[in-house]
């Protein structure tokens, strides 16, 4: 069917080429632009959810809740030592007191913290695989002799709602993408029907001279392909500019939550395929619309 795109010049002349002059390429350009934005949003969110989720799922925070500072220090150092030798633990880092106080100061105030309020010690550990309840229990048991008050929190637990939101937004983006493709298909169908009506006389003459439905369909699908390709390229260029600008802004935001919010390399390939897919879809819809309409003619 794609070979039909390269019709000989004399066949192309059977219906006049109205590309670019009509509104169809610009409608396709807008549809492509919106489709690409939806796809880009979906790809970026999927990437963020995958990267962030995989990373956070391996992180666990150990809290040493002990009011006596000296005992807390002893327990903290002992827990870190045990964790460093524990199987499956790849990284252990005791969070400095100053950093903990800095994190708490917005809620408790500098004065209160300086008033020697007991603050838990924190140990960030990273596992070689996503934390599960079995692993946490194993670590808890290993720590209990030296730090009976140790509390282990998987970071995936408190980030779960965020990634759940990301997944919902991803599904929404996929839904929007599908709706836009359906709207594009409907637009192409209407445009082809309109073009078919405009050229009904020519098609009837072709029929009376022995022209086949496929010959007529090729004329319209070629014309629609040219319109769609032109519009899709314009929409692609605009969408890439917008995605690049947003990517720069994400990078500038320097937020840990947005650290994975970047277009993956395969995302650019997917975005480049979408305009071609829209062109192919337009050709297919044009062909089916014409063949379906011509069946009603003798």
């Amino acid at each position, binding site marked *: 069917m794609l070979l039909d795109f390269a019709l000989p010049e004399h066949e192309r002349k*059977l*219906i006049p080429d109205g590309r670019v002059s009509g509104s169809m390429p610009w409608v396709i350009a807008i549809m492509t632009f919106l489709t690409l934005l939806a796809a880009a949003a979906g790809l970026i969110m999927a990437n963020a959810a995958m990267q962030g989720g995989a990373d956070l799922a391996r992180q666990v925070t150990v809290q040493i809740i002990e009011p006596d500072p000296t005992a807390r220090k002893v327990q903290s150092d002992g827990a870190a030592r045990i964790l460093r030798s524990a199987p499956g633990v790849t990284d252990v880092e005791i969070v400095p007191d100053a950093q903990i106080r800095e994190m708490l100061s917005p809620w408790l105030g500098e004065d209160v913290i300086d008033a020697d309020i007991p603050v838990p010690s924190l140990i960030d550990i990273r596992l070689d695989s996503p934390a599960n309840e079995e692993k946490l229990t194993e670590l808890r048991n290993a720590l209990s002799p030296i730090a009976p008050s140790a509390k282990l929190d998987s970071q995936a637990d408190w980030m779960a709602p965020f990634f759940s939101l990301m997944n919902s937004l991803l599904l929404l983006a996929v839904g929007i993408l599908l709706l836009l493709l359906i709207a594009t298909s409907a637009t192409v169908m209407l445009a082809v029907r309109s073009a078919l009506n405009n050229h009904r006389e*020519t098609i*009837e003459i072709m*029929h*009376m001279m022995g022209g086949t439905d496929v010959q007529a369909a090729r004329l319209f699908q070629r014309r629609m392909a040219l319109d769609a390709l032109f519009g899709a390229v314009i929409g692609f260029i605009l969408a890439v500019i917008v995605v690049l600008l947003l990517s720069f802004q994400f990078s500038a935001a320097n937020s840990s939550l947005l650290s994975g919010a970047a277009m993956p390399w395969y995302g650019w390939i997917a975005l480049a395929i979408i305009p071609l897919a829209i062109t192919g879809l337009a050709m297919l819809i044009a062909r089916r619309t014409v063949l379906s309409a011509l069946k009603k003619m*003798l």
Partner: protein
Amino acid sequence: MQSVVEFDNVGLRYGTGTEALTDISFTLYPGSFYFLTGASGAGKTSLLKLLYLAHRPSRGSIRMFDQDAVTLPRERMPGFRRRIGVVFQDFRLVPHLSTFDNIALPLRIAGIQEKDLQNPVSEMLNWIGLTDREHARPATLSGGEQQRVAIARAVIGRPEILVADEPTGNVDPDMARRLLQLFAALNKLGTTIVVATHDIHLLQEIENAQMMRLDAGRLADPTGSLRHPPKPLVLKS
């Protein structure tokens, strides 16, 4: 003799109205020449539409090229239509195509290569006297010129049947005679010709041409010759 077209008790009704054609029966033989006459509204154009497969009859049977044309599957229509040349009353030239491209249209639809259609189209342009207008669009041609292009387009594929609806209605008598000579030449090559016309003078131009007269949708066959093979064609000098 093997027939080209056989109508047997054919009726044609548009929608729920009265029949435009009633009980039409005739046989057309290869190489014969027929004039179809009748008053306006008698059903000439409707009969021609059945002949060039633009409509299916409401009843009766039509055999064409020894096959049933009534139940002919739609996908086989193009092959049949390529064997039939049509001159429409309103010419029906493709408005955005040049004279050359309009005449070449049937050959291109049939898949003839560009190199093979240059000569026949040029010869046809020369014959109808429009060589200098080969790039002109139909809108810039006079009525007579458009008619000549329509005739050239109908005959260029050397059809087995040529159906012409008032083909000389817009040309001067000299050109009308030349066009009839073209039809007669085609006829000699074996093409069956059916010409619908009001012009009774045309009937005298071609000897042995048979006449079919329609009257209020019914066929009058005063000579009874429609069911008999024609004699060899002789064109009056």
